[in-house]
């Protein structure tokens, strides 16, 4: 219907920035140290290991499969492989939410562990996706990206710390709900904008701010209420944006998508098996844990949206 034409999408750019910022903040709010400490450290290690193993397997698979289908420049090839594999590493809790109450009651312990892994494993994906930004910048200019990464990370931390300070200043006096909502909206858009200008991922910048706020700010509960209050509409809008940007350059992309799903399936099963075998504290969990980690959602959507905007890839048949 062309309701969301190019001009409208351009005009709605700040809304897109707001969505990315909102999701980054929400993700950061999941990392409240006091709450994380209630779980064994093995859980945290397992979540990170599981996502890295999935990432590694999918990365190599996608990296070597892509040239079979399409001809794309080397730089974009690596960027695309990194983005897809980072997205593959994440798990959504949707599958767990659909289980019957009987099943949930019978497997409480395993489901608790799966829930924990699902909410934490996006962390490594987020960091990998953040690294992609530095790689892109340097690969365009030909400077060593490793050097840029260290410098850029320090820079990101300093800028984000400044923005956290700004948040804390705003939170220092009591504000009513609508004022608080305005501050969160303005800061989320502003942070996403700063991140884009300075070649950081808006998700990482907002995640870091969310992480600091949940651990430092006294009014974190009020902030979280505002953020989580519109979580579903935020994801809904994000999907609308993704749909509007979506275009099918070649039918081979469908085949590639099927291969990608296969790699992710293998990656999750393998990673699930490995975490239960490598950590002695987790050996009591079933070895086919990966079946509970197949649902994908949440973080991959914003990363795909950013990716399509920052790294537009033109596919040519191989």
């Amino acid at each position, binding site marked *: 219907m062309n309701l969301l034409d190019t001009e409208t999408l351009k005009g709605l750019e700040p809304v897109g920035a707001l969505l990315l910022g909102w999701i980054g903040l929400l993700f950061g709010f999941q990392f409240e140290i006091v709450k994380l400490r209630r779980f064994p450290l093995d859980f945290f290690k397992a979540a990170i290991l599981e996502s890295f193993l999935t990432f590694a397997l999918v990365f190599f698979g996608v990296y070597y499969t892509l040239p079979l289908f399409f001809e794309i420049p080397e730089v974009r090839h690596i960027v695309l492989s990194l983005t897809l594999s980072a997205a593959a590493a994440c798990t959504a809790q949707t599958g767990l939410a659909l289980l019957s109450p009987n099943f949930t009651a019978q497997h409480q312990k395993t489901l608790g562990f799966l829930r924990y892994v699902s909410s934490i494993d996006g962390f490594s994906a987020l960091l990998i996706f953040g690294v992609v930004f530095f790689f892109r910048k340097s690969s365009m200019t030909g400077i060593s990206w490793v050097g840029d990464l260290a410098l850029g990370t320090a820079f990101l931390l300093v800028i984000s710390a400044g923005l956290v300070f700004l948040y804390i200043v705003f939170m220092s006096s009591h504000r009513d709900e609508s004022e608080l909502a305005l501050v969160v909206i303005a800061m989320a858009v*502003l942070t996403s904008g*700063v991140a884009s200008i300075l070649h950081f991922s808006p998700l990482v910048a907002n995640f870091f701010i969310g992480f600091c706020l949940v651990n430092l700010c006294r009014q974190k509960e009020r902030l979280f209420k505002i953020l989580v209050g519109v979580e579903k509409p935020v994801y809904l809008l994000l999907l609308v944006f993704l749909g509007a940007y979506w275009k099918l350059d070649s039918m081979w992309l469908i085949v590639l998508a099927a291969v990608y799903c296969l790699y992710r399936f293998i990656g999750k099963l393998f990673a699930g098996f490995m975490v239960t075998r490598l950590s002695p504290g987790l050996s009591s969990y079933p070895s086919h844990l990966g079946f509970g980690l197949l649902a994908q959602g949440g973080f991959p959507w914003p990363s795909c949206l950013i990716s399509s905007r920052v790294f537009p890839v033109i596919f040519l048949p191989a």
Partner: protein
Amino acid sequence: MVDLYQSKRNLVTYILTLFVVTLFALWLRHLDMESSWQKAGMINFSIGFVLLLAYMSAQILKIARLPLISGYIIVGIIVGPYVSGFLTNDMISRFGFINDVALSFIALTAGGALHLQALKKRRKSIVLNILFLTLLVFGFVFVFFVFMGSNFSFTRNLSSVQVIAFAVLIGVVAVARSPSSAIAIISESRASGPFTETVLGVTVAMDVFVIVLFTVALTVARVILGGSGMMDTQVFMAVFMEMAVSFFFGALLGKGISFYVDRIRHDLPLFLLFLAFGVSKISMWSDNFMINCFDIHLHLEPLLICMSAGFVVQNFSKTRAYFMESLESVSLPVYVLFFSLAGASLNFDALRLCWLLTLCLAVVRVAGIFCATWLAGTVAGDLSLHNRSAWMAYLTQAGVAIGLAQIAEREFPEIGMYLTTVILALIFVNQVIGPVTFKAVLNLVGEAKIR
């Protein structure tokens, strides 16, 4: 004592934060923007920056008892293309769609603020105000320009016929008000009472009425300037059709909102924002569709649609309280964004070109408004305090007036440039002064709950 300490502390915090954020923005602005992603980032940063800046500045001005929207407008002027240039004209036009959505949302609130029972009680006063405001404001401005127009350097080159046509058009535009400003100040002051009801009723009704008046003025101007020598009844039919269809869609939408609140209720503020987006978009789309498919120019006016939708929910539904609460919960970001962008769009160049003429017209318009409101109030038997001070509530002017000026410019290119410049300059003055006087009068008549 504690309150005084707290407000002093807040003031210092706001000033320091403003300073730091502004320095940061200036630094970012000097960075090289290589990619489109970075440029988009700059636009996003600018929006976030303007929102924060406007919010903080308004809080500072609040200490001086100025209305919040004056703070938003002033920040808009400062960051706009004519002062600091932080927001460029290109950026502002890019935000045009978001602005339209915000305006539709404000129109929903304006419609929702109209209580049928109260309007019925104030019917006499509202009708008289509309009548006298139309006749006297138009009359004062028309007579002033016909006799004095050629004395100003800016309009010296107009022929006597062009002066009359110009006077007709500017006289009608002077009648236009700004419902968005009115509703923002009423919400901010939590004002209610007979005076507020009358002002709101008059402002909203005038916004609709002025479109009809302008159509008449366009036809008259066409006759004066030697175009078609007859009144084109088709034009009037089209205008009435547009308004009727817009009201009809609005009423349907209002029923739809009531149904949603009754049955679903989830995330109503967001649903209303989607709705505002949908109305703006469908209105644009239907324009093109009717012209391309049927060669008919039928413009659905989003402002009228949303106003009547809000009115229907408020007066013909049981869900009115929840509806108004939901609108209220997201109104602050909408107002901050809308009025900052409105401030950034105010045209300094226009004011510079014809400042003397503008000031004179502004004074004449105020005189017309004063006579009209005093006369209407006296005939209707309102309180004499209300009659003496009501003029202060009718100064604000914005969107509709700009839209009318643009139509006139397209229609009469020979006087259009002059007309648009003078109207933009006049809006500049009225939009800066209007909110301040409006808030003051609400305090004066004792209907503002928050001072």
